[in-house]
């Protein structure tokens, strides 16, 4: 595409090009890592249409809700599906002989 023709496809103000799902997902992931309410580095973020999917594991129910809250604030207008699970910790189990 020539540079001259670019005005035909120039993004509108209500749909700026940086709001491509790819960048929104990256922004949400960054927010989850950097927001002091979450600091979660291992959450996977996927966007399909107006649906936002969160996957991964956290240590407790409260942190699970905070992850969804921060994601929702970072990507307003998307429906958040919180598929994050709480890690279930069992007893110590058997020892391994090395």
């Amino acid at each position, binding site marked *: 595409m020539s540079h001259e023709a670019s005005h035909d496809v120039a993004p509108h103000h209500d749909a700026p090009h940086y709001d491509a799902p790819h960048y929104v997902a990256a922004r949400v992931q960054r927010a989850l890592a950097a927001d*002091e309410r979450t*600091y979660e*580095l*291992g959450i996977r973020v996927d966007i399909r249409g107006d649906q936002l999917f969160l996957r991964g*594991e956290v*240590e*407790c129910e*409260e*942190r699970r809700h905070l992850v969804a809250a921060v994601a929702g604030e970072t990507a307003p207008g998307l429906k958040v599906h919180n598929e994050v699970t709480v*890690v*279930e*910790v*069992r*007893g*110590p*189990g*058997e*020892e*391994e*002989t*090395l």
Partner: protein
Amino acid sequence: MKIRVAAVGDVHLGEDLRGRYRGRLDGIGERADVLLLAGDLTRHGTPEEGRVVADEFRDLPIPVVTVLGNHDYQSDAADEIVEVLRDAGIQVLQDESTVIECGDLRLGVVGGKGFGGGFAGKCASEFGEPQMKAFVRHTREISELWHKALKGLDTDHRVVLSHYSPVKDTLAGEPLEIYPFLGSYLLAEAVDAEGADLFIHGHAHSGVEKGLTPGGVRVRNVALPVLRRAYAVYSLGAEDPEV
């Protein structure tokens, strides 16, 4: 005669989890001779969270040795956290060693947080911008300190305690793109040069538990989301592991 090493990492405690871990440690004195914590004790690295960690792991019937993880540095309060932990009787290793008496046997532990850089053939090198050089130099200097610490350790068994991984084996399940931020082969190289019975690490929440260094040292990723149990116990020096 054997030494039983309990280990867990990435407990990521905070005020919201206060009191939650302590109960899982009931009976640890019957199961193990020492407890090793592989860093990421906190979530934000604040002194307040450090105090939660100290309260969960203080006054156990066995010695507790820990290293810090990247999360424990997040609030620039690592020194204060170290102090809080030491006041609670928890040993904190920062690129140094300690010797623990377990009955008639002596266990040497060399530890520190470690750092990243990637793995042989696919790693960063000390070249180019100062930021890049500093990144790789940090890992190299750590591995040199560990090498030296291991060399000076004359004990029945030797364990290395780290936050970052020395090998790719235990990262399986993590995205390939972030491997350089999960560990460095320089850590394995240092340990292989001197030999050890076991290399414990955390940090890779989506990885797997078991791996091996190129030199044949057993590697165990004890990050809590990987273990899914309160702690793992590894027995060193048992007569015949197959019986």
